[in-house]
């Protein structure tokens, strides 16, 4: 891991912290009634998006899930625009026409959060196919959850990616629950990496609370794909702090489950301890980032609240390129 | 026509692809007499609407074809016979005709003379050659046109002059390659020169319409030894006026609605612009490369102020060959007034009630004028 410079470590921490603060804040603002629609939060899973997306450039594309804010931030989508989008404002990333479940920024290689469970993996085959046909070393990453892991689309896509030998990485973020249903029950083979073998690709499991473990594993999977080694599957075992959607009381979880996770498995705490214990960063370095991120999120919320909703004429635009 | 003769009036064949025509309506009544050149009926084809003209005087004894009905080429439309012929004879004639009539096969085989393609300067040039005379007449269409512009002239000119008459699609037009080089008159003149060489033709009469006229003039200037005479129809290059709006409008139109008013400008009788004519024009314009070609050509045709860029008026006298000029009085593209400054050596005709496409709207008159003033000596 010697390639992780001090700058990279700071970047990783900032990214994870930004996701965390963004989600915590959305949680609060949603509870206050400021945010419309359905919101699914990524808090607790930050090490996954960060550890993977830090290997990517803008030419690499990802597809995401309902729980897409973290992937967006990690892929470099503007936080101010994202917040405005979640508020349904004209200044939003998608001019208020997508909302939380459909934030996308193709210039950043973010092909969209996706409101359909299992909607993304087929698309990433197309991303991989494009890179392959154009002879670039770009890759496509499909993030999906344990819920989508059972969808036919996901399984079809893993098959297709192997058959066509595409530079695609299938990342199943297994947070243990598909909505309110335990993945232990709903996934016939909950050790999802196992399924990779059936598709002729390597499958690996990694601890999603540990940024370094994710970063290293993703690095190998991505390097492999860039070099023409084809698809692979990475199962990231992690946990979400909030409910499936905002308003979910999570009565299907053990009463103190989240509390314990926040204490023992928090990726930000683990990261901080590691880098400080190793004398690579000082607490003060990280505290400074905490302050800056807090200010950024404040700014994002203020701007989002102040921004105008899209004009009614916007209803009819962007249906087609031309019609 | 001798007495007691019964002559059939049949659905004409205007151009190769015509298989059938729709009789729109009769312009003369049953039993009436008509003179040669009179318009007897309106017929519409896939390509254009036009009138069936009488090739001789006679009496329209019996109308067989109904208005608004489609008939195959060669089908009996009416019977022409002197009053001395009895009704029974007329009816018997009709019965016999109808029982023996077999419409032309719709297959492509044995269609008679087909358009051909020849490679000239790496361009595929489509042309239609009819007649086998030693003397050659080349028909050169105008901007946005093609060899079908000569639908009503080609056969008759062959028939009446015995010449070999060739119509071609200029580069960028019709079904020729959509590559137009420098897109100027010299390019087209050079292509025609190479085309004639490729067909082993040393000298030819050139009849050009509109831009085709200017191309013919350019050809005559550049290759005087290869030209026998020039027929210029509503020709460019004889004055500086031109309907710039038409050029732009035609060029930019992409839909039926957009292009229709521009095409209507080409005719004195706007009703001639039927749906099929519009469709054919759109089909052409939608071929890859056409838009670029037309753009390039128009930039060469016009100067910055929207006037014609090239003038041949002052050099007409220096051309050794015979020149005649025809114009439609109601030409909205290039005004008929351009005939006024022509030198006396040039024979000219301005035809009333005709527009820019005068060779179509007044085909007989144009044909006869060309025959009388250019092609026969």
């Amino acid at each position, binding site marked *: *891991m010697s390639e992780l410079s001090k700058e990279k470590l700071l970047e990783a921490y900032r990214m994870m912290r930004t996701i965390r603060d963004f989600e915590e804040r959305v949680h609060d603002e949603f509870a206050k009634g400021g945010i419309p629609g359905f919101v699914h939060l990524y808090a607790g899973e930050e090490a996954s998006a960060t550890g993977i997306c830090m290997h990517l450039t803008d030419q690499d594309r990802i597809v995401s899930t309902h729980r897409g804010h973290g992937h967006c931030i990690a892929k470099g989508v503007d936080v101010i625009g994202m917040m405005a989008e979640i508020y349904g404002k004209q200044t939003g990333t998608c001019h208020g026409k997508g909302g939380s479940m459909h934030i996308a920024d193709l210039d950043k290689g973010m092909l969209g959060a996706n409101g359909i469970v299992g909607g993304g993996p087929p698309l990433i085959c197309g991303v991989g196919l494009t890179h392959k046909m154009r002879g670039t070393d770009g890759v496509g990453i499909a993030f999906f959850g344990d819920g989508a892991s059972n969808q036919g689309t996901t399984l079809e896509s893993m098959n297709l990616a192997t058959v066509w030998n595409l530079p695609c990485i299938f990342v199943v973020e297994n947070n243990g629950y598909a909505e309110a249903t335990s993945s232990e029950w709903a996934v016939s083979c*909950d050790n999802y990496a196992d399924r990779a073998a059936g598709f002729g690709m390597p499958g690996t*499991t990694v*601890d999603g609370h540990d940024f370094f*473990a994710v*970063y290293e594993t993703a690095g190998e999977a991505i390097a492999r794909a860039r070099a023409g080694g084809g698809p692979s599957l990475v199962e990231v075992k992690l946990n979400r702090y909030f409910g499936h959607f905002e308003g979910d009381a999570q009565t299907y979880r053990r009463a103190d489950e989240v509390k314990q996770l926040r204490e023992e498995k928090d990726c930000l705490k683990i990261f901080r301890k590691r880098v400080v214990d190793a004398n690579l960063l000082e607490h003060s370095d990280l505290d400074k980032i905490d302050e800056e991120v807090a200010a950024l999120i404040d700014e994002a919320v203020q701007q989002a609240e102040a921004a105008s909703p899209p004009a009614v004429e916007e209803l009819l635009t962007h249906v087609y390129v031309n019609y | 026509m001798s007495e007691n003769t019964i002559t059939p009036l049949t659905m004409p064949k205007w151009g190769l692809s015509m298989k059938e025509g729709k009789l729109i309506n009769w312009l003369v009544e049953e039993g009436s007499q008509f003179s040669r050149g009179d318009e007897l009926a309106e017929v519409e084809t896939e390509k254009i609407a036009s009138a069936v003209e009488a090739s001789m005087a006679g009496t329209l004894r019996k109308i067989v074809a109904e208005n608004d009905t489609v008939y195959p080429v060669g089908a009996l439309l009416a019977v022409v016979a002197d009053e001395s012929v009895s009704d029974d004879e007329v009816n018997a004639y009709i019965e016999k005709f109808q029982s023996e009539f077999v419409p032309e096969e719709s297959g492509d085989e044995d269609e008679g003379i087909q358009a051909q393609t020849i490679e000239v300067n790496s361009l595929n040039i489509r042309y239609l050659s009819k007649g086998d005379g030693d003397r050659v007449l080349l028909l050169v269409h105008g901007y946005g046109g093609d060899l079908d512009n000569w639908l009503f002239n080609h056969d008759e000119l062959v028939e009446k002059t015995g010449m070999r008459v060739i119509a071609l699609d200029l580069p960028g037009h019709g079904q020729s390659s959509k590559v137009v080089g420098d897109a100027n008159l010299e390019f087209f003149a050079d292509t025609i020169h190479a085309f004639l060489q490729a067909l082993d033709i040393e000298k030819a009469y050139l009849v050009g319409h509109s831009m085709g006229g200017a191309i013919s003039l350019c050809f005559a200037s550049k290759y005087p030894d290869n030209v026998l005479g020039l027929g210029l129809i509503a020709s460019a290059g004889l004055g500086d006026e031109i309907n710039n709006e038409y050029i732009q409008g035609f060029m930019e139109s992409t839909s039926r609605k957009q292009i229709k008013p521009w095409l209507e400008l080409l005719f004195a009788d706007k009703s001639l612009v039927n749906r099929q004519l519009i469709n054919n024009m759109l089909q052409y314009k939608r071929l890859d490369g056409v838009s670029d070609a037309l753009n390039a050509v128009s930039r060469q045709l016009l100067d910055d102020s929207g006037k014609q860029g090239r003038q041949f008026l002052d050099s007409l006298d220096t051309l050794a060959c015979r020149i005649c000029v025809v114009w439609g009085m109601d030409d909205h593209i290039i005004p008929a007034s351009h005939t006024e400054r022509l030198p006396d050596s040039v024979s000219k005709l301005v035809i009333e009630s005709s527009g820019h496409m005068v060779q179509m709207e007044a085909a007989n008159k144009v044909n006869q004028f060309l025959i009388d003033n250019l092609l026969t000596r």
Partner: protein
Amino acid sequence: MNPIPESTSVGIIANPYSSRDIRRLVSSASSIQTVERANIVERILVTLATFGIDKAIMMPDKSGLAAQLIRNLESRSHLNRAASVDLEFLDIPITSTVTDTLIAGRIFRERNVGAVIVLGGDGTHRAVARYIGDIPMVSISTGTNNAFPRFHEATLAGLALGIYLKGLVNTESMVRRNKVIRVTVNNNIEDLALVDLAITSDRWVGARAVWKMENLKELYLAFCEPAAIGMSSIGGLLDPVSRKEMSGLKVLMADPVECPMTLNAPVAPGLFHEIGILDSSRIEIGVDYEIESAHGVLALDGEREIEFSAKDEVIVRLEDDGPVTLDVEATIESAARSGVFVNHRTAGRSGEHKFRMPESLCFG
């Protein structure tokens, strides 16, 4: 060490995560699916049932192994007798980390099970060994590197276990005490290794597995067999040390261009690597060795576990009081030589056994 166990209950620790690490990506290392792991446990249970062993206690998991096993047992009761074994899952919080294995090992020791069946590789056996005391381990190798566990078909491991637990033969050759490497950091006993302790120059535990050999600096080997896979292969090819020899091996490594000798070793399945050898020497039992690297990561039996820096004092010691393992081949051979498996038929009688087997050995 008493070769006759006091208890005939069996503990089962099946690591659901072994053979799934990053080496799948970098070297096409094998992977044993959850379904197959459940099948392995089922085959062991079938065999135990045949011996009348009716109690098994298993470490729970949240990755589908236990769930799959339960599904198997419910749906296949008409096929075999595995379900007749009372299978208890330990009631412990599941962390899906090595902690689960450590706790299960400790509970098995407290409950004094007769033996512990271990499904995993070197890393899993190491974790089980930490708290299991003298309870024998029966190994089923389902890991990436399997230098410690010998490869046996589960049915045969169960057979040996049945023979052992039922006391059908009485020989000390059935169980063997192993060497162990213990490591202390700042005088605290931190962990142990059954095969190899590697010191790498990594900063982070990261994805745990050791596969970047350029980072490998020191190796301390309890034993190293020439036909082994993993980092012990370096020692095995350089200076083999058997499991029984009362010494170990220390190897110092560096960039091959800086070293007097190199060798190409199968450091992971599908991964040969040129290793630069600076020096190697035997290490003696009971002697403290101070490591030479100033900072890095300690990797135990192939897994990076402990990050250390210049301020930490890391001591390595080879000892001979490691965990006990059941020798499957020796046990079955001994039983066979004693005639345990043979039914002698005589006319008019249904049969007479030299040893009365609780059940026919017709499994199922």
